[in-house]
């Protein structure tokens, strides 16, 4: 009984999340956040006037949903690069009993050194986009 209730709860929550995502996708495809006021503004930018590593990601998503990869790249290069990386990571996470080879690759791309590299990339991007 507890099992079926958990499954129902999971399915319900999953469907709500999916619906919400779809709604977001439609919104972000239709409206360019640059021209509409109903998208949240970046708090870091509002406070400091400086760009954060995530600034432009809403516009980038708008361009991506309209298949304008170059436009998305101009708004937030990090987001465009991150998407395939994240998808690959989640696919690897979904594999229940990864073998030694997969674990080796996982460690290379998502392990301790990779995380340092990611932090380095994010901070470099953060600084560069404010001074260039």
């Amino acid at each position: 009984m507890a099992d079926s209730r958990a499954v129902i709860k999971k399915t319900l929550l999953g469907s709500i999340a999916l619906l919400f995502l779809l709604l977001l996708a439609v919104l972000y495809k239709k409206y360019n956040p640059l021209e509409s006021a109903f998208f949240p503004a970046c708090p870091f930018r509002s406070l400091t006037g400086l760009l954060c590593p995530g600034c432009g990601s809403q516009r980038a998503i708008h361009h991506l949903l309209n298949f304008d990869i170059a436009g998305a790249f101009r708004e937030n290069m990090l987001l465009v690069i991150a998407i395939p990386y994240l998808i690959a990571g989640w696919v690897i996470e979904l594999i229940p009993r990864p073998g030694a080879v997969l674990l080796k690759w996982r460690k290379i791309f998502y392990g301790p050194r990779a995380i340092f590299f990611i932090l380095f990339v994010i901070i470099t991007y953060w600084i560069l986009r404010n001074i260039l």
Partner: protein
Amino acid sequence: MKKYFYTDGTGNFGPFTLEELRDENLARETPVWFHELGEWKSAGSIPELTELFKMTPPPPPGSTPVTPGVPKFDFNQKPPKSWLLESVLATVLCCLPFGIIGIVYASKVENRFFSGDLEGAVRASRNAETWTYVSFFTGLVAFVVSMGIAFAVMQSHGRFPGCY
């Protein structure tokens, strides 16, 4: 949420929630570990796990139970969830400080795991999870509030602000 690990004597598996543990076909003798437990104990001796064995008959009378040795730490297993991906997503979607904190905890998970500190890795994993939820709900609230303000303005102006 409580996360369980179990071992077959050579490799460790986990973390699993109680729900997920149901599908792992544990035996009463399987050594199980979770944070509060401190050391490996057989699954049959942990009260909340006894319901997993309702359908398995107890060992036949007269048989000697298998006593597993101290489990060896095995690097050929998946580290605890580092929440790296979710934290990177939060960072590039501008939930700024929380995403970066998440990445720092992800790095702790991986470093501790690969230096053999499974327990520390699990602790860092739980912190990373918390920060992921903080990012997610901050983002959600920011989005809903921003939408709410826009709709309120639209009510008084008769059109979406900024939409021509």
